[in-house]
């Protein structure tokens, strides 16, 4: 699976296709567009953690909508990455309650350790992209970082930060999603 250059005509895996079929049945038949966000999430997980224009076109095709209907959604919601990302996207909560418990310091520390910059491209080793996000609804366990579907909480000690990073560094496949037998290889490491 390539990630930094999406294939010209990407295709969903059979497992993802089956999952998309299941999801589309949750809405009235003439309202297939309702599956937009769940299908974009599947697309991002399938194609290396971001949704290239070709991937968004595929989503449009699958949902039977115009490509512009996908673009206007993918650019509105902050979870969809529109540029290539590192193997792991660290989404650091920066909102008030996390800031009160040290998220600014955490961000600086993660920039220092990984060499990546918030809002910039992946780190030189391709492992990490740093992204600041707004409130993750985990304020009582601040500061917080989300990586894919996992929350890393109370990252206010060197030990907790190191534990998170070493877990991610040794991860060869991303965790499997419920409809997959096994997680896909972590994209960039596979290049």
């Amino acid at each position: 699976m390539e990630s930094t250059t999406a294939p010209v005509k990407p295709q969903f895996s059979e497992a993802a296709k089956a999952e998309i079929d299941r999801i589309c049945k949750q809405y009235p038949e003439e309202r297939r567009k309702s599956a937009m966000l769940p299908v974009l999430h599947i697309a991002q997980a399938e194609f290396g953690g971001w949704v290239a224009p070709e991937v968004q076109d595929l989503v449009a095709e699958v949902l039977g909508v115009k490509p512009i209907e996908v673009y206007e959604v993918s650019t509105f919601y902050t979870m969809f990455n529109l540029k290539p990302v590192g193997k792991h996207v660290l989404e650091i909560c920066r909102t008030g309650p996390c800031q009160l418990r040290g998220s600014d310091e955490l961000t600086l520390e993660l920039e220092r350790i990984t060499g990546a910059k918030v809002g910039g491209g992946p780190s030189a080793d391709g492992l990490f992209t740093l992204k600041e996000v707004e409130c993750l609804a985990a304020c009582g366990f601040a500061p917080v970082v989300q990586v894919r579907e996992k929350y890393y909480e109370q990252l206010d000690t060197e030990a907790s930060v190191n534990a998170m990073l070493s877990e991610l560094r040794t991860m060869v496949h991303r965790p499997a999603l419920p409809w997959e037998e096994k997680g896909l290889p972590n994209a960039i490491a596979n290049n």
Partner: protein
Amino acid sequence: MGRKLLTEHINVEGIDTFEVYRKHGGYRSVEKAVKTMTPDEVVEEVKKSGLRGRGGAGFPTGLKWSFLAKPEGVPRYLVCNADESEPGTFKDRQLMSKLPHLLIEGMITSSYALGANTSYIYIRGELLYVLRILEKAIAEAYAAGFLGKNILGSGYDLDLYVHPGGGAYICGEETALLESLEGKRGNPRNKPPFPAVQGLYARPTVVNNVESIAAVPVIVNDGGDEYAKIGVGKSTGTKLISACGHLNKPGIYEIELGVPVEEFIYSDEYCGGIWKGRDLKAVVAGGSSVPILPKELILKTAAGENRLMTYESLSDGGFVTGTMLGSGGFIAMDETTCIVRNTWNFSRFYHHESCGQCSPCREGTGWLEKILHRLEHGHGNERDIDVLASVAKQIEGNTICPLGEAAAWPVSAAIRHFRDEFEWHVRYPQEATRPGAVFPGKAVLA
């Protein structure tokens, strides 16, 4: 110790499975409702309970239900708002991940009351792992005959689905949520028509917060009158409070409405006081959009009465000396906190989250962020403080949805109660912007 109506069994091993949840009395409200009550009787109990919307607005749930239009032959929907995104609020995430069946039970009983045969839980996209937990629990409920066709032989059918968002605070606004559920950008709709008449797919729809729905089983089981006995006045029942910031024991607390704020902050039963032995400076009591209050006004009202954790007591004094219970996102700040920095942080949040439809919000939130950034970084001038207050005032009431107010209120309140600290940033920028700087008190301005 107050009664726990929602979270009594939250720490029971395996309570996230159907079997254990059922063993602890789970799904009784579904049995009672579909077998022995008419839908209207369920609505009546919720009305009697005095339950108020737990997402933040505090609108009576039973009343909201009674507004639902019921044209013959037109499907209607119940949509659960699980887009928990209000800074300071993290109760629904905990409730859903630990007690998924409580929400599902509430959804079934509530859907029956409203005559909905398809219902959705709209959960924020960041919580995909909770969506997996809910979907697993829903599958168990189907297998046990509590969802699907002819539930418990009653003739009532219900399908329940979970739908993820994509990362947008605005989708917590109910009409933005419905747009999002239809696969579009989360732009709030003009009202009227209200969702009760034209909601999801232009059909009659009720949108309720997770915690509101989760309170329905106990109301149906014990009766609305019993529920209403808990609490004070029009603040009935229990409320989940998300306690965070500079507290010794941040976390989720289910309180009987009416606990004194002072007890909630300092007692070991709840937050255990302020961390590091420091003094309390200020509290944002109901999620980032409600007015911040300094210590003396959060503990006691302007009239000197003990402030209670109720809708009425927290709003005593209006916005001059009071605030709101809101979502129950309780953010405590210690004496070293920079109020200007915190206000800037919240303004950055609202600017980032404005959907951009209404110019007062789209532009105004940007100005708020910009001016606060300048003040916090030592480049402000005396006029900035008044300009801030004026921009906030001009956003208020001039937008389609309440995000405008949510962005304006924190700024207005910070200036109202902490103007000296803003002036300190203007007059002594070098001191105020030093790392770790703490406002020394208004004597410094004399």
